[in-house]
């Protein structure tokens, strides 16, 4: 047991170092000068001052070492472009907003998606089913930039007087409604289809038929057995979805001018703010990798069979 846990943790370290190294090397190959913001040339002296200040004049392995050391102490370094902010400041200020957007979109998806799927499954091949599935197919396929644009046009501009929703920003609950819908519609469709599929399947299972035969009321069967079992895959899918909702809201943040990490990431790449891009990429990777590690360990602890297979 102990051996398994230690082994799993030890496996994570080289992977982490490798991912940091890969990101680091990738960043080094991006062309463009983070210190040149406009047409104006940067004189060699000033460029030299800047490189010295940010340790860019050191050999790459030394920079890598310094960087890993920083990551180990939760210090992602200074921003090269936002001269008065560190990457930690940026994460601290922008990440919670993306996090909130992601969680709310997830909530929206669950609250509306699951009932939609249930309705569709209880009346398969009826108007309800087709309606629900049409809706969820649209949510699945229409690109979020179109959805966002249409939502803003109708609910903030054309009927703005009625709904009173702002077009942009992330202040107050009103401003959060449209972006959450725009981001949550896709996952909502996903849940609806997922739940419909599992429910249809569960309803065919022997134990449901048995329960019905035993005279249990339809509603009780539905609540106790079917719904419970149908939700498992939905919960299963929620994890990976959530991770992506938090980081994957680039377009939504851009269109709604939400000061989240996704919008910031794009700005940082185009400004060649190496340390910010690296910091955010590494942060994201570390979270994913460590989460995977913890999950694996929990599984090993709870279910010895997986441990055997793995070692």
């Amino acid at each position, binding site marked *: 047991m102990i051996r398994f846990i230690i082994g799993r943790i030890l496996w994570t370290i080289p992977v982490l170092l490798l991912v940091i190294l890969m990101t680091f090397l990738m960043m080094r190959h991006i062309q*463009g*000068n*983070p*210190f*040149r*913001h406009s*047409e*104006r040339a940067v*004189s060699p002296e*000033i460029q030299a*001052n*800047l490189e*010295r*200040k940010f340790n860019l004049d050191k050999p790459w392995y030394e920079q890598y070492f310094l960087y890993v050391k920083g990551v180990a102490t939760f210090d992602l370094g*200074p921003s090269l*472009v*936002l*001269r*008065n*902010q*560190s990457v930690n*400041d940026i994460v*601290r*200020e*922008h990440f*919670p907003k993306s*996090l909130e957007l992601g969680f709310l979109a997830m909530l929206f998806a669950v609250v509306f998606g699951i009932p939609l799927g249930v309705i569709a499954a209880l009346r398969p091949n009826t108007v309800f089913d087709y309606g629900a599935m049409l809706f969820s197919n649209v949510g699945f396929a229409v690109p979020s930039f179109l959805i966002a644009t249409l939502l803003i046009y109708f609910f*903030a*501009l054309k009927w*703005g007087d009625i709904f009173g929703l*702002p*077009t*942009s*920003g992330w*202040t*107050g609950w009103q*401003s959060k409604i449209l972006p959450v819908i725009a981001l949550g519609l896709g996952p909502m469709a996903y849940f609806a289809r997922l739940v419909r599929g599992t429910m249809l399947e569960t309803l065919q299972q022997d134990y449901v038929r048995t329960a019905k035969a035993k005279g249990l009321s339809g509603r009780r069967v539905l609540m106790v057995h079917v719904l419970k079992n149908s939700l*498992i895959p939905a*919960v*299963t899918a929620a*994890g990976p979805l*959530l*991770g992506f909702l*938090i980081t994957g809201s680039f377009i939504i943040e851009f*269109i*709604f*001018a939400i*000061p989240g990490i996704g*919008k*910031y990431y794009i*700005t940082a790449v*185009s400004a060649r703010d190496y340390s910010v891009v690296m910091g955010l990429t590494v942060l994201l990777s570390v*979270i*994913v990798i*460590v*989460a995977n590690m*913890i*999950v*694996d360990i929990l*599984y090993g602890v709870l279910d010895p069979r997986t441990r055997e297979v793995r070692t």
Partner: protein
Amino acid sequence: MSRPRKFGWGVGVTALLLALAFAAASCGGSDSSSGSSGGGDTITVNWGTEPPSLDPGLATDTTSANILQNIMDPLVKLGPAPDLKPIPSLAESWTETDGGKTVTFKLRSDGKWTNGDPVTANDFEYSWKRTISPELAADYAYQFFGIVGAQEYNSCKSNCDALKDKVGVKATDAHTLQVKLTSPQPWFVQQVAHTSFLAVNKTAVEKFGDKWTEAKNIVTDGPFKLVNWQHDSRIDLVKNDAWRDAKDVSLKRVNGRMISDGTTAVQAFEANEVDVTASLPPDDIPRLKETPEYQNYDALGTYYYGLNVKNITDVKQRRAMALAIDRQTIIDNIAQADQEPSTGYTPKGMPGFDTINPHSPWLPASGDMDKAKQLMSQVDNPKKSITLWYNEDPAHKQIAVAVQSMWKQLGINVSLKAQEFAQYLEFLGPPPNKAVDAFRLGWIGDYVDAMNFLEQWTCKSGNNNTNYCDPSYDKLVDQARQTPDNDARYEIYAKLEDKLLGENGAVPIIPIYWYTYVQLEKESIKDTYNLNLLDQVDLTKVKVK
């Protein structure tokens, strides 16, 4: 089922990790509700982008400059067009001695920092030397290189204190600032209006280090105070009642949003979330022009196409390419913001413009395709296949596509290549990458003298991406630098323009148009909300109807 179910755990663990990492962080203050122009003395503007820094020493962009001009007190301000003569602000007067090589500013005695300290000449000496210092590594340190010893101090690697003391900036007493220049620089006093020359508060800077510009730490001395800065989201200012002319300031509060995307910004304006916004999407301008809120201003800038003279060697071909561009059509259909087709490189609005402008025969507003074709036919060894570079941006792309089709009529096959801005600038050099035949760029003035534009085309200039190099041009630039008399200097500038774009000009560049700034402004402030040639607004003058 074991693998899929694993992700049920994944939810929990991921969420837990995220929560642990950021729970502490998310306290950052509750977002006060936005709201637009509520009262008669509050407005909401769209600053556009997050200012990279509000440290006057480090600020390089227009957003930072715009905010700094309103929260800090410059020594001098620029007067009205067309002369843009420096007018007193914190400096009540200045004198030039030693043949123009020494400038002495006399400061007012009622300047006051928001922490109660008086603003003194020592603050300026400290601030300027701080900006020049190699430790701060300021991009705009070069603005100070006209001052004795500044360049030496900036490029110093060790034991810099001795060099610091040699920099020609000295507070001879609390209200007198003496500046020694390397040569007479008639534009120096105007240049001091630039944000790089603002003072910072030593106490705040030393106490808070890098974080001194945050809203809770910052100490300023201008008509407005910075009260709220949520990064990438909003910057709010309130009137500084302790400022010397506070009685003339009508606005009590200026809320500022940061909406960088043009379409999003226009939507916010139409929903009354902001009262002022720039960055209008060009293709949407025809619609917006019809509204009473549309406003445009002259800008001190030139949008141009550069030609790599080492690749396109025949001057006749370069002239033909210039003639082939129908710039009025580009303005009417693509740029659409009432820009003016340029007839020279130095933009309209520059002091001495009427003397300097060459009325280039190669730049008729609507082009001259017949003459272009005729010239092209005289080219011995024409380059029929060229690559045109631009930086990734919808408007630049559209203009490039239009120019591509215009040059095609000359029999030139143009392939378009785009890069992101940061990489693009590296790629252009100087010297430009060999693959560059033609490229687009723009130049916006740092200060109001044509020198800022024309010295760009000297052989050693860091901004000459054309490979154009004419020693006689450089000699004239040097001569202009030594000429303090404005009219005489403008005459030399005219000769420089002539070398570039006159009848016998080398045409290394094809100016397309002179920039304008276009904005939407709510009618309640439209009369008093005005941009100057450098894209800055003086909020002390704004009044809400």
